[in-house]
C-alpha cells in the first residue's frame, strides 16, 4: 500500500503528510490531525456532521477520498473561531439557542456559513433548502433557521450587532425567561469532545462480532486465530465475564455478549481490541462461530401462542410484562352506551437516529478502578450492574457520562459498556469503540412496535362511558425498558379524559426482533395514537367536531386519573385552544368538510413536492424573456 504524499493547506497552515490511499478526508482530519470538531454521523453523506470547505466549497468529508484534498485549501469548523472570537453565525447559534446536543452543530454552522456566503439575502425558505444536506434530531430546525436569519440580518445591518450581547435573564431569575446556554460556545466551535473524539495514549480500537442469526444456539466460538494476529491485544466472549452476567432495566436478562445462544440479528457475540481499526476488523473475520439454528418468532401475537419458540427460560410464555387496569364496570358501561366503536391500530418500530452513534472509552486507572466514559443516559444504574458483572466492589467501578450527542432514550441501555470494561481489564490498556451508523441501527433498541384493539362506548352527546383496550408491544429479544414502557402505556391509555369504566391490558412480549426500549414518550405514543385516532372516528360517527368531543370529556383541575393520581392542574383545555388556533382549524364534524380544505391553503404551509425557492425571481424573468 503506497502512501499518498499529501500537500494541502488546512485552516491556513500548510501541511505535508503521508496518508493511506483508502483514508477519507474525514479520517485524515480527525485521526491524523486531531481536528475532531467535525464529526462522523453516518459515513454515507446523509447527515452533514462532517461538512468542511474544500477550496471554499462546502463538501462532506466522509465522501471525499483524501487524495481529493491534494493541493487544496481545507477549512474545518476549527477555522471559524480561530482567534477565539466566535464568528457571526456561531454567535447567532448561541444567541438563538440553536444548539442542543451539539453533535450536528459544527456541520450545521458550516452549512449556514456556506448558505450566507452563497446568498447574503437568502430568505427562510432558501436557507432551509441550502441547509438541506444537514440533519438535526433535537431542535426541529426552527431555532437553527432563526439563527441563520439573525446572522444574515446583522450582517446586512438590519439588526444591531449588540443583539448578541444582550442578556435576557436577570441575575437569579430564570423561570419563564430566555437563558443563554453556557455550553453552547463549546458546541458551535466544535471544541466539545464526545466519546468518539477522545483518545488516550496507548489506546486500542475495539470491534464487535455480531450475530447473523435471529435465534441460534452457539455450539462453539474459536478465537485462537484472531488472538495470535499481529496487533491484536485482546479477544473476549461471554467466557471472559468474571461475575454474574446480565444487564437490563427491570430484569437482567441480557448478557454482555451472547451466552449459549443468540436471540437477534446484530447481538454481540465476541469483541476484539487491536492496535488499529483495520486490524480489529480483520481479527473479527478470523473468529469462527458454529451456530445451530433455532426456530425463531418475529410476531408478538404468535409468540404468545402455546408452542411458540421460547426465548428465555424464565419466561416460557414469552411475556416480559403484563399490566392490567380495571376501573368501574365495563360491561355495564357498554350496555349504557348509545354508540360502541371498535377499531384496531398499529405502530411500527422507530430508530432514534441520534446524530452521534454510540461510542465509549474505557480504562483501568492506577488504583484499579475500571472506568467507562460514554454517552450513557443511566450511569448510576449501570455502575451497579457492571460491578456485579465484573465481580468488583462498587468503589472499583466508575462511569463518566460524556456529552450525549442525542439520546432520546436510546442510550439508556448498557449495550456495549460491559464489553469495553472487559477488554480494558484484559488488555490493561485504554480501549475505544465507536459504532458505525449501521451498527447503531442494527444492534440498539427501537421504539416498541404495537398492536392495539380498542372498543369505546359513548353517549349521543359525546360523553365517553367506557374504554376497553388491549395493546401488545413487541419487546424484541431482551427486556430492557419494556416493562416500564407497557406500564406507562397502560397508565396513559385512556388519555386525559373522564371515563367512568375502563379495562386496559398492555403486554410486552419477547420476540427474535431487535430489542425495543426507551424512546421519548415511553409507551404514551402508542396508546395516544390509538385513543386519539379513535376519538376522531367517534367524533365523525356522532357528528361532533373533534375538538368538541375532547372538550366534552376533558379532565379539569383537581381531577383524579384512572390510576388514582390527583392532578393539581390540567392544561388540556389550554392546549386544545392553542392547537385549534394555530392550525387554522375549520370548525365542524370531520364529515362536514368538502374536497378542498381551506385550512391548508395558507402562505405558511409549503406545497407538496416543492423545491427551488431560489428560482422565485427567475420564474418571472424567464416568462418575461
Amino acid at each position, binding site marked *: *500500500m*503506497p502512501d499518498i504524499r499529501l500537500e494541502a493547506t488546512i485552516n491556513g497552515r500548510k501541511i505535508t503528510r503521508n496518508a493511506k*490511499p*483508502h483514508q*477519507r478526508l474525514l479520517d485524515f482530519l480527525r485521526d491524523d490531525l486531531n481536528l475532531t470538531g467535525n464529526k462522523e454521523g453516518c*459515513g*454515507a*453523506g446523509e447527515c*452533514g456532521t462532517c*461538512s468542511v470547505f474544500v477550496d471554499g*466549497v*462546502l*463538501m*462532506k468529508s*466522509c*465522501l*471525499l*477520498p483524501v487524495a*481529493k484534498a491534494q493541493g487544496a485549501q481545507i477549512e474545518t469548523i476549527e477555522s471559524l473561531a480561530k482567534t477565539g472570537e466566535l464568528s457571526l453565525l456561531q454567535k447567532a447559534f448561541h444567541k438563538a439557542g440553536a444548539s442542543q446536543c451539539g453533535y450536528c452543530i459544527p456541520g450545521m454552522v458550516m*452549512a449556514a456559513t*456556506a*448558505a450566507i456566503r*452563497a446568498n447574503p439575502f437568502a430568505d427562510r425558505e432558501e436557507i432551509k*433548502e*441550502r441547509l*438541506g*444536506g444537514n440533519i438535526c434530531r433535537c431542535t426541529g430546525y426552527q431555532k437553527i433557521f432563526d439563527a441563520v436569519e439573525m446572522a444574515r440580518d446583522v450582517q446586512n445591518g438590519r439588526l444591531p450587532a449588540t443583539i448578541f450581547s444582550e442578556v435576557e435573564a436577570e441575575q437569579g431569575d430564570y423561570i419563564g425567561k430566555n437563558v443563554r446556554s453556557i455550553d453552547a460556545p463549546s458546541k458551535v466551535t466544535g471544541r466539545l469532545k464526545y466519546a468518539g473524539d477522545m483518545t488516550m495514549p496507548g489506546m486500542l480500537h475495539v*470491534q464487535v*462480532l455480531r450475530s*447473523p*442469526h435471529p435465534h441460534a444456539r452457539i*455450539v462453539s466460538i474459536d478465537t485462537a486465530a484472531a488472538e495470535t494476529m499481529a496487533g491484536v491485544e485482546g479477544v473476549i466472549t461471554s467466557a471472559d465475564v468474571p461475575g454474574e452476567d446480565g444487564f437490563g432495566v427491570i430484569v437482567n436478562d441480557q448478557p454482555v455478549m451472547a451466552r449459549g445462544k443468540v436471540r437477534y440479528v446484530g447481538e454481540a457475540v465476541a469483541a476484539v481490541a487491536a492496535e488499529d481499526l483495520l486490524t480489529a*476488523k*480483520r481479527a*473479527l*473475520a478470523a*473468529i*469462527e*462461530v*458454529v*451456530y*445451530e*439454528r*433455532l*426456530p425463531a418468532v418475529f410476531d408478538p401475537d404468535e409468540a404468545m401462542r402455546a408452542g411458540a419458540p421460547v426465548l428465555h427460560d424464565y419466561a416460557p410464555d414469552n411475556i416480559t410484562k403484563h399490566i392490567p387496569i380495571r376501573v368501574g364496570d365495563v360491561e355495564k358501561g357498554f350496555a349504557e352506551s348509545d354508540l360502541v366503536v371498535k377499531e384496531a391500530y398499529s405502530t411500527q418500530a422507530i430508530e432514534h437516529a441520534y446524530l452521534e452513534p454510540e461510542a465509549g472509552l474505557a480504562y483501568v486507572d492506577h488504583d484499579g478502578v475500571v472506568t467507562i466514559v460514554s454517552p450513557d443516559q443511566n450511569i448510576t444504574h449501570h455502575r451497579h450492574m457492571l460491578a456485579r458483572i465484573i465481580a468488583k466492589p462498587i468503589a472499583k467501578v466508575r462511569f463518566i457520562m460524556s456529552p450525549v450527542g442525542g439520546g432520546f432514550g436510546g442510550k439508556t441501555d448498557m449495550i456495549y459498556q460491559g464489553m469495553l470494561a472487559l477488554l480494558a481489564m484484559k488488555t490493561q490498556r485504554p480501549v475505544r469503540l465507536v459504532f*458505525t451508523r*449501521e*451498527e447503531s441501527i442494527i444492534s440498539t433498541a427501537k421504539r416498541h412496535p404495537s398492536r392495539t384493539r380498542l372498543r369505546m362506548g359513548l353517549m349521543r352527546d359525546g360523553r365517553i362511558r367506557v374504554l376497553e383496550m388491549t395493546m401488545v408491544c413487541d419487546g424484541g429479544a431482551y427486556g430492557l425498558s419494556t416493562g416500564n414502557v407497557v406500564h406507562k402505556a397502560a397508565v396513559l391509555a385512556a388519555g386525559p379524559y373522564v371515563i367512568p369504566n375502563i379495562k386496559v391490558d398492555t403486554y410486552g412480549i419477547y420476540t427474535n426482533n431487535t430489542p425495543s426500549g426507551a424512546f421519548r414518550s415511553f409507551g404514551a405514543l402508542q396508546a395516544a395514537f390509538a385513543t386519539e385516532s379513535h376519538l376522531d372516528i367517534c367524533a365523525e360517527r356522532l357528528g361532533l367536531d373533534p375538538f368538541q368531543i375532547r372538550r366534552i370529556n376533558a379532565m379539569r383541575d383537581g381531577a383524579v386519573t384512572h390510576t388514582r393520581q390527583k392532578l393539581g392542574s390540567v392544561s388540556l383545555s389550554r392546549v386544545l385552544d392553542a392547537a385549534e388556533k394555530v392550525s387554522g382549524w375549520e370548525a365542524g364534524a370531520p364529515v362536514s368538510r368538502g374536497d378542498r380544505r381551506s385550512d391548508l391553503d395558507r402562505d405558511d404551509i409549503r406545497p*407538496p*413536492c416543492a*423545491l*427551488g425557492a*431560489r*428560482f422565485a425571481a*427567475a*420564474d418571472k424573468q*424567464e*416568462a*418575461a*424573456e
Partner: protein
Amino acid sequence: MDKQMSADRPKERQVMLICGEYLTPGTLDEAFAAMQRHRGRYRVVAGCTDTLPWAREGRAGDVEIPVLIDVARIPDLRESRVDDHRVWLGAATPIQRFLDDPALGRALRCMPRCAVWFADEQIRAQATIGGNIVNASPAADVTPALIAYDAEVELAKSSGGRILRRRMKLDQFVIGPNRTALEEGELLIAVECDALPGHGGSFEKVGHRRSLVISIVCLATLVKLDAQGRRFEDVRLALGGIGPVPRRLADVETFLRGGPLSAARLEEAAEMPVSLVASRTRQAYRRDVVRGFMLRGLINAARRAGAEAGALPPELEAVYA
C-alpha cells in the same frame, strides 16, 4: 428443530472502501495508461459520492479494490462549452455547475431545476454528470433531463497509442439498472446536447423528503410556445424512476406539438404515459404521480415559456401550477 449446523466465518466487516492505490491522473493519456497498466484490477471513480456509501454494510459491504483511478481532475473532463445551439459538458462537470453557471442555466432551463433536487448543495459540488450517467440508476435525475435535450455521449478508449472516440444517444447508452453500453477500457468523456434557451423548463420530483432524496418519480419537461403563447410549438418530456431506464415520451410530444393548451388535450396527454410504469414496487402510486406530474410539468413549463394570460385552463392552473 432445525438441526442444520453452520460454521459462520463472518465476512470481513469493513465499512469503507479499501484500496491499495489511489491514482489521480492529470490527463486523459495518463488515465488510459493507468487503466492499461492495472487492467482487471481497477475501478474508475469521479465524484465518489456514490462509491463510498456503496462500500458499506448493507450494500456492497467489504470492498477491496486494488486500484482506484480518479478522473475528476482531468481538465478536459471538467470543461463546459455553451453556444446558442449546442452545449458540451465534460463528464467530470459537477452537477452544481447547472446552478452556478448562468449561461448554462439559460441554455438548459430544465437543468437548474433538476440540479436543485439532486442530493444536496454539498454533494452536487462533488458529484459529476458523468458519474450520474454511468451509474445508470433507475432513479437517476440528471439522465432523464438530459435525454429530454436529445443528449449524446462521447466515449473514448485507447488503442495502439491512439485514442478512439465514438458517440451514441444517451437513451441508448443507458441499457438497464446499473448497466450501460460502456466497453471495457472505455471512458465517458462528455455529454453534448441541444441548447434550448427559448424553451420553458420544469423538473418535477417526489421522494421521501426534499433533500438527499432518491426519486420515486421524476419528470423533465421542456416547452416552447408559438409567438402568441397559445400553442405548443415544441414539447420534450422524459420520465425517470418508473422502470429500469428513463423514458423519453416521444408519442406524447407528437400529440401535443402544434396543439392548443386546452384542458382536454393536457388531460389526454397526462394519461398517455401512465401505462409506462414498470417499477418493481408501488406501481399504483407511481401511476397517480405520473398523471399529476404531467399536468404540473406541462403547465409550469408553459408558464415559464411565456404562456399568454388566460391561455392555460384556469382550473388546472389553480391545482397544478
